[in-house]
């Protein structure tokens, strides 16, 4: 399987790292609020696409930019980055917080998004199935909230965690708090989801303790053209936990088949 090429780019003054693999139509993946497990689990997508996984400002090797402090700032950052990479029409995928970001990008730039993949997206307030406020999860329980299969962290999370590792998580948590300390949902989102008329795939682990799978039906109702794929036994990290997640994306995005 191919590996990622890493490139450092300066986008309107902020240095970001972009990972790419494969060739073909572009598929851009927006990661969630954590980058601990890396993105190798996405590499099967590179067999059918030019896979592009940028690190958001404030995450992983990308630099901080405290002035990018709202989801809309990130949308604008990605308009800059897409211009710089010469990306016009893309398949856009996003996981968790990246799913909310992908949704807003597609709401505002509808013609540029050919297909949309949302994996356990953040953003809706669903009182019957509330999103866990990740800021309140005790440190020692966090990994268990992310996935029932702790083996996905092997080789990624030092045990016990080193100060350096914790500091990096604190930094990413700070970037997330800039946007979501106030609340872990976006009240404006449902008002505009009707604009996402492109084919959309909702992927969800049925054991997701962070953003409960019960939210999938609400998304499916608000999106005009979405299908839902529920992954049995899977938590909040579907791509890390099962190859079925990437396979579903390939079927949906490359082959236009029902998943």
């Amino acid at each position, binding site marked *: 399987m191919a590996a990622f090429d890493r490139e450092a780019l300066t986008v309107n003054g902020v240095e970001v790292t972009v990972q790419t693999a494969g060739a073909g139509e572009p598929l851009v993946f927006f990661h969630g609020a954590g980058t601990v497990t890396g993105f190798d689990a996405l590499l099967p997508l590179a067999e059918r696409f030019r896979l592009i996984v940028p690190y958001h400002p404030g995450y992983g090797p990308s630099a901080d930019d*405290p002035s990018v*402090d709202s989801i809309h700032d990130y949308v604008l950052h990605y308009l800059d980055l897409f211009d710089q990479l010469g990306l016009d029409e893309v398949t856009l995928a996003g996981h968790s917080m990246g799913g909310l970001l992908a949704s807003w990008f597609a709401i505002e730039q509808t013609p540029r998004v050919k297909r949309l993949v949302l994996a356990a997206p953040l953003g809706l307030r669903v009182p019957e199935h509330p999103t866990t406020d990740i*800021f*309140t999860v*005790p*440190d020692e329980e966090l990994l268990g909230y992310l996935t029932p299969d702790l083996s996905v962290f092997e080789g990624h999370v030092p045990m016990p965690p080193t*100060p*350096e590792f*914790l*500091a*990096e998580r*604190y*930094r990413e*948590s*700070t970037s*997330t*708090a*800039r946007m979501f*300390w*106030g*609340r872990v949902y976006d009240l404006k989102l449902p008002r505009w989801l009707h604009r996402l008329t492109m084919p959309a795939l909702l992927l969800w682990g049925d054991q997701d303790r962070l953003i409960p799978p019960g939210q999938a039906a609400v998304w499916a109702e608000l999106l005009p053209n979405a299908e839902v794929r529920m992954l049995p036994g899977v938590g909040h990290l579907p791509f890390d936990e099962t190859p079925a997640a990437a396979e579903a994306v390939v079927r949906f995005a490359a082959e236009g088949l029902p998943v």
Partner: protein
Amino acid sequence: MSVLDQVKFYFFHHHHYAAVPADEASYPATWVVPPGHLFDPVKGHALYQRHMRSMRLADELPFDGICINEHHNTVYSMTPAVSLMAAAIATATKNAKIMVAGVPVNLTTPNRLAEEYAMLDVMSGGRMEFAFPLGTGMEYWSNAGSVNPTTGRARFRESLDVILKAWTEEGPIRYDGDFYTYRYLNPWPKPFQKPHPKCFIVGSGSRETVELAVDYGLGYSLVFIPIPAQLKAFERMRELAEERGRTVTPDDLIIVVIAYVADTDEEAVREARPHIERFFSWFHRVPPKFLLPPGYVSRDEFLRRASDPALAHGTEASWEDMVAIGRIACGSPDTVADTVAHWCEEARCARVNVVLEHGDMPEWKTVKNMNLFANEVIPRVRAKAAAAAAEPALAPVGVE
């Protein structure tokens, strides 16, 4: 000249909810998430009355002032609205200065705080002083959602700017800030003291808060950190002030002292130690997560703290550790006076906020301690200044 000439002693009271449950070991935190059932309003009422007795006593004894503070969601403090307590103290006392140290400005709006504090100053006939804290990490969890810790420091700075302008510039004025905008900034009443009551920044010695104090010409009050770090912070403040053409006087610097006085050193330690230990083990029981909400400090500062075992496990320190690193003075009047005088001279500071009620201490010990400190320690410290002045000069006058 010795700083002991000018040293002022403020009776610093935390207003703990002092009823410690018998099963205290079973509660992982006494901040942010202490179970609500631990609060008994009948005990709470009795404690407010007891605390007010202490305030009146402090006013009658030769203390220069009273100092009170604010914390939220915690057994540590029964004064989450500290201005209310200040108003009660202002009417219950006649002489003492009242230092409010203070409302975390980010939890309110600066115009409202300028109003509240000016009200207190006018009500008390100009007896107020204010120390402004950024607020502990815990205050941000307790008010989660409304105050973002990632912008806390920038917001704090701007709030101070608003308050000081509101007090010193002829209103109404317009203010166009990053966090606050005012079409008509014009709080009413205006402070009794001109240009405004004496103000301090409360901090742990970070470069940021020291700079803030120097930039606005305010004093600096340190929280409980190891003594060498305190001395370094004051030194940094004096240096920075000099660079910027300002002067820091001993009256601008506050140290916080934990003291207990008895007839002998042994008696003092015996009577105080269990309560001071309780003060740290119960009243400071804070999981590390609550100390540092995201963005409250930088990544590098987080790394510094996570790498230092003493900082990472601060609330588990032993009695010996605490006495070795902090300003804890327990002993006879001579011992405590010697220790406090030494600390003031070493730090070149002329303000001592002295904590005399510790943790779950019974009232008789508080009263005994207050009387002995005020009547036996304070005069001994002041006598040292007189003694120093009476000694023949060792060097010719004018030579430093």
